[in-house]
């Protein structure tokens, strides 16, 4: 039997986006292999930002499989990455499914990642590592929604492990400095008190939204906090990060709720507020194509 080398990826997706003279962003280079594809670009509004939709023709991430996504935005370009449907992880007896995402956000460019929800099913394990390198003048927005999964007994949280780690570094003249590390660890199998105090607090769904930009001022922070309080969620909003690294400010929004829709509505409201206040861009309309 052939041994599968450790560095072998079940799916690879790589993309480099540039801005044309006209201001329109487009993929200068794209590559895919195995279980990841991308469908043709969309322009959702008049500002030239390009939206790409990642699809997983297999319909799910499988045990011990490793998936690599790499995005690079060149000077002045704007990219939004979304998914066609929820990312599903079924039973993974072979070991956790793993996604590595590497993002490089160039000078004065924008990278927004707004995927559908992640669903880890009974006896599934999933690990995700996201590594971002951003220019101090760029904009970063990362969203994540995680559901409690599903089992035949209709009990929530029947998966084994879910672990996400996102690390953002900012480029200085000579060195990269860490801005923030955002992590989530849910191990319902080991922690019997998963739904309890300090853990899921009786809620079922969790959301993470991470913003990094030089222009995240106090007025916008307050606006986000008001949106969080008005939403149908239990949310914390805080200024995160080691400080203003080369001028870049960071806000972390963490949410608990009882539906994907509630988290998604809050994330969309915050994304729209950031778009309006920071970039004068119209609201995000992610109609699924």
């Amino acid at each position, binding site marked *: 039997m052939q041994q599968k080398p450790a560095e072998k990826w079940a799916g690879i997706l790589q993309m480099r986006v540039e801005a044309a003279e006209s201001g329109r962003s487009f993929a200068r280079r794209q590559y895919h292999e195995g279980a990841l594809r991308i469908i043709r670009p969309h322009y959702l509004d008049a500002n030239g930002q390009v939206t790409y939709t990642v699809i997983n023709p297999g319909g799910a991430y499988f045990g011990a499989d490793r998936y690599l996504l790499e995005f690079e935005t060149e000077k002045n370009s704007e990219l939004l990455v979304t998914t066609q449907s929820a990312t599903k992880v079924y039973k993974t007896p072979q070991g956790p499914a793993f996604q590595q995402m590497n993002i490089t956000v160039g000078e004065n460019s924008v990278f927004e990642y707004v995927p559908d929800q992640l669903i880890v099913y009974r006896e599934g394990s999933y690990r995700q590592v996201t590594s971002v390198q951003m220019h101090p003048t760029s904009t970063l927005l990362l969203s994540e929604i995680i559901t409690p999964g599903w089992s035949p007994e209709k009990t929530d949280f029947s998966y084994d492990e879910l*672990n996400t*780690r996102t*690390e953002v570094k900012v480029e200085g003249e000579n060195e990269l*400095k*860490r*801005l*923030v*590390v*955002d*992590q*989530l*660890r*849910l191990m319902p199998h080991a*922690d019997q*008190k*998963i739904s*309890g*105090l*300090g*853990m*899921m*607090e009786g809620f079922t769904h*969790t959301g*993470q939204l991470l913003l990094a930009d030089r222009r995240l001022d106090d007025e916008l922070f307050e606006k986000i*906090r008001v949106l969080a309080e008005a939403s149908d969620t*239990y*949310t*914390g*909003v*805080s*200024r*995160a*990060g*080691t400080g203003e690294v080369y001028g870049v400010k960071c806000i*972390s929004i*963490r*949410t*608990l709720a009882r539906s994907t829709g509630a988290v998604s509505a809050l994330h969309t409201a915050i994304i729209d507020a950031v778009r309006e206040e920071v970039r004068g861009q119209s609201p995000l309309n992610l109609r699924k194509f």
Partner: protein
Amino acid sequence: MASSPQLSALLGMMQLTDSALPTGAFSHSLGFETYLTSEQIIDEETFSTWLEMFASQQLTFTDALAIRLVYAAKTFDDIVDLDELITAQALPTQIRHGGITMGKRLLFLGAESYPSEWISTYAEKVSEGEMYAHQALVWAILARELGVEEDDAVAAHVYATLISLTQNAVRGIPLGQNAGQRVIRGAQEWVEQAVKASAELGYNDLGAISPGLEIAQMRHEHQRARLFMS
């Protein structure tokens, strides 16, 4: 009469993990005040439930693990990296600032009483704004120099934090002094669990916890009435 190395390690540990050490720990609830306001913590039992969760989450995945990583450090560059990482992973502002404030107090006290190359370099770099400081890292460097065993250094810090949180709960909830001592006695089991669980973790686990506690710590910033700074 010269004291044995074990005795000087013990005495140094007693001084530096004493809840009377002026690090400002008395002014931090590290999140429980949010649960106090929502009336989820109202008595000895509910506080104990919270404290056990806190020991198994933040204290295990951040403080206990950070101490182990300092013991594994080969050069001071490893400390510089850990100092940046532990600051970057603390998303709630008040938790990050609390770690820095208490870390600085312990750092300057420790650098004066127990000078060594690493602790002096750390103090210097924090003064110059090149590093941040965090209580668990500072304590681990001091403990390592004192010759405290790694597991003992983890246990002493975790227990000291649980004791000072309980003392704050005695004032804040309030609880009776005897109830406080019962919680502190019961917490020894959670200290042992934190020692055991943290030994199984690695660098990339630093700060990886469940969302509820972090949300409560974030929401504390906006509470109307507050007894504590976090």
